């Protein structure tokens, strides 16, 4: 491994963790704000910083910050007769696996920049999906041990529910993906993404969700259950078990469970995007299309406009205002034009020397990199939004019903999906 490769890997680690750690706290804000909107409320908007005599609230964007500060300085409570070591260690066990999952996820297109082959993922493992499953099952320990170590009956009930529920749903989750693995023929996540380019049947993007619609639904349900959020929030079931397995946690230890939950939401969205929504691929287009300035321009326009729109809704600005609408359009236009220019400039202007030449010669690759990153982020954000809004819509299951759903509905359905996929593949090939 050369020094450059080491640096690339380190940068990738920073990028992956950075992406997770910036989206996850944002989601704690988004959860409150989006749920508030759907529930006919305004949501939190009072946290403020006094700057030059003006209080800046940023529409409640400061809440994650305030939360973090609060949790750090809050008393770290430890039940007297609890199991000290496990009580200390289990929040880490809850966060770490959730973070580790992101290592195998391709965040963007593999590019060739400045003479280096750069895969936009920390580790491109052959057995990427198996790695995912391994870490997903590790996360059971965190919550199970937390409840047990708290010496609390509610905690115990919560941890029992967690362990049985998570393990049951992992079985279903694993089986639903076998269909996809058979279709693609690889466990490597970058292969799966590569496979999802172009069109199928002439009019559909060749995405996992169209190749395996049933599998996608099943996977979505079981991945949802893995995050332990409503309607699958029986481990913490507010009204029965008060807070379930983390009832005796406070301060940053509680914060880590909380963060872990949101990290799981993000990684869940990443996984779902990679497996079923083509990862960083553009719909209908092949990955070669990233070198087409026109495609890059249109894609850039849409994704930049979306990101601007996202930021604007973050800030709570009124979307009815024509100026805001103009800003969104302008942002999209600038982004699209910039990317298209970057991609196609060398072709238009011919080769140049110096730093400009260096950038221009790497222009198409750079544009591809930026574009794919943006497309991927956009997909994640939409999925996270969907995930969070779903969480606030439904009442929760009962313990036995969730097990019944897992074993009696999801598992057989996954098997059926597997068999049908096998038959179809046999016929086609």
């Amino acid at each position, binding site marked *: 491994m050369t020094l450059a490769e080491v640096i690339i890997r380190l940068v990738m680690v920073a990028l992956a963790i950075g992406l997770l750690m910036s989206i996850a706290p944002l989601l704690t804000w988004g959860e409150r704000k*989006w749920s508030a*909107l*759907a*529930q*006919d*409320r*305004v949501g939190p908007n009072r946290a403020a910083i006094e700057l030059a005599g003006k209080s800046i609230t940023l529409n409640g964007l400061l809440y994650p910050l305030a939360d973090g500060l609060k949790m750090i300085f809050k008393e770290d409570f430890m039940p007297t007769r609890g199991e000290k070591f496990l009580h200390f260690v289990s929040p880490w066990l809850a966060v770490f696996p959730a973070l580790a999952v992101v290592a195998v996820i391709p965040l963007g297109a593999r590019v060739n920049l400045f003479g280096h082959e750069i895969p936009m993922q920390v580790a491109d493992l052959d057995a990427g999906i198996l790695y995912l499953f391994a870490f997903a099952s590790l996360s059971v320990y965190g919550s199970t041990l937390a409840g047990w170590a708290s010496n609390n009956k509610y905690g115990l009930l919560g941890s029992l529910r967690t362990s049985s529920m998570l393990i049951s749903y992992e079985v279903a989750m694993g089986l639903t993906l076998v269909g996809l693995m058979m279709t693609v023929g690889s466990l490597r996540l970058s292969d799966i993404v590569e496979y999802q380019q172009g069109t199928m049947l002439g009019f559909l993007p060749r995405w996992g969700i169209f190749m395996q619609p049933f599998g996608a*639904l099943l996977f979505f349900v079981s991945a949802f259950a893995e995050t332990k959020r409503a309607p699958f929030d029986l481990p913490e079931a507010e009204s029965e078990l008060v807070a379930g397995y983390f009832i005796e946690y406070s301060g940053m230890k509680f914060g880590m469970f909380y963060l872990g939950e949101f990290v799981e939401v993000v990684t869940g969205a990443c996984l779902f995007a990679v497996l079923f929504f083509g990862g960083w691929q553009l719909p209908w287009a092949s990955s070669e299309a990233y070198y087409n300035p026109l495609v890059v321009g249109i894609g850039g326009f849409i994704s930049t406009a979306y990101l601007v729109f996202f930021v604007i*809704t973050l800030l709570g600005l*009124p*979307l*009815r205002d024509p100026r805001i609408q103009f800003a969104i359009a302008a942002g999209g236009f600038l982004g699209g034009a910039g990317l298209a220019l970057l991609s196609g400039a060398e072709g238009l202007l011919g080769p140049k020397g110096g730093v400009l030449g260096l950038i221009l010669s790497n222009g198409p690759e750079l544009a591809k990199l930026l574009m794919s990153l943006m497309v991927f982020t956009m997909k994640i954000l939409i999925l996270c939004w969907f995930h969070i*809004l*779903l969480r*606030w*819509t*439904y009442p929760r299951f009962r313990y*036995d019903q969730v097990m019944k759903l897992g074993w009696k509905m999801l598992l057989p359905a996954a098997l059926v999906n597997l068999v049908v996929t096998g038959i179809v593949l046999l016929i086609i090939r």
Partner: protein
Amino acid sequence: MAESKKEIKTYISDASDDMTWHERLYVPALAKGFGVFAKHFFRNLLGDKEEGDTGTIQYPEQKIAYSERWRGAHRLTKRPDGSTKCVACMMCSTACPAQCIHIIAKEVDDPNVEKAPEVFVIDELRCIFCGMCVEACPKDAIRMDTGIHVPAMYSREEAVWDLDKLISNKGVRGNV
């Protein structure tokens, strides 16, 4: 009866017996429910914040207008010369279910005024804002139309409002 039976029958409910097939599939009904929820989301996101659906009052910047009959903290009305209309007849303290009004009467020189309160205190912590004192007053001397809540206080003594304080309270709809 049923309780005397020591043997306990454990049942796990199974609702599937009276559901239609599409209810049993979860997804259609869940999707519909999500549709309603998302409808609210987009209506509030794209709609006009001012007259939107939220109906949230940004207290303390915004305040709702109380109804005309709303019973707030008390006040004593005044005669044109600034003295209280109260004639210390004790009607209000008799009618008060919470016994929060305390009055000591005094004689006044003015021949048109029978009596006046020397001491008139209302313990606003005891008060339950039922409005019976206002009903009981034969002189329209006590009213609850100030439109103010009794504020939070640091000591119990502050909650006992005396004559001066009660006279200085203003009514929402003009000070009669």
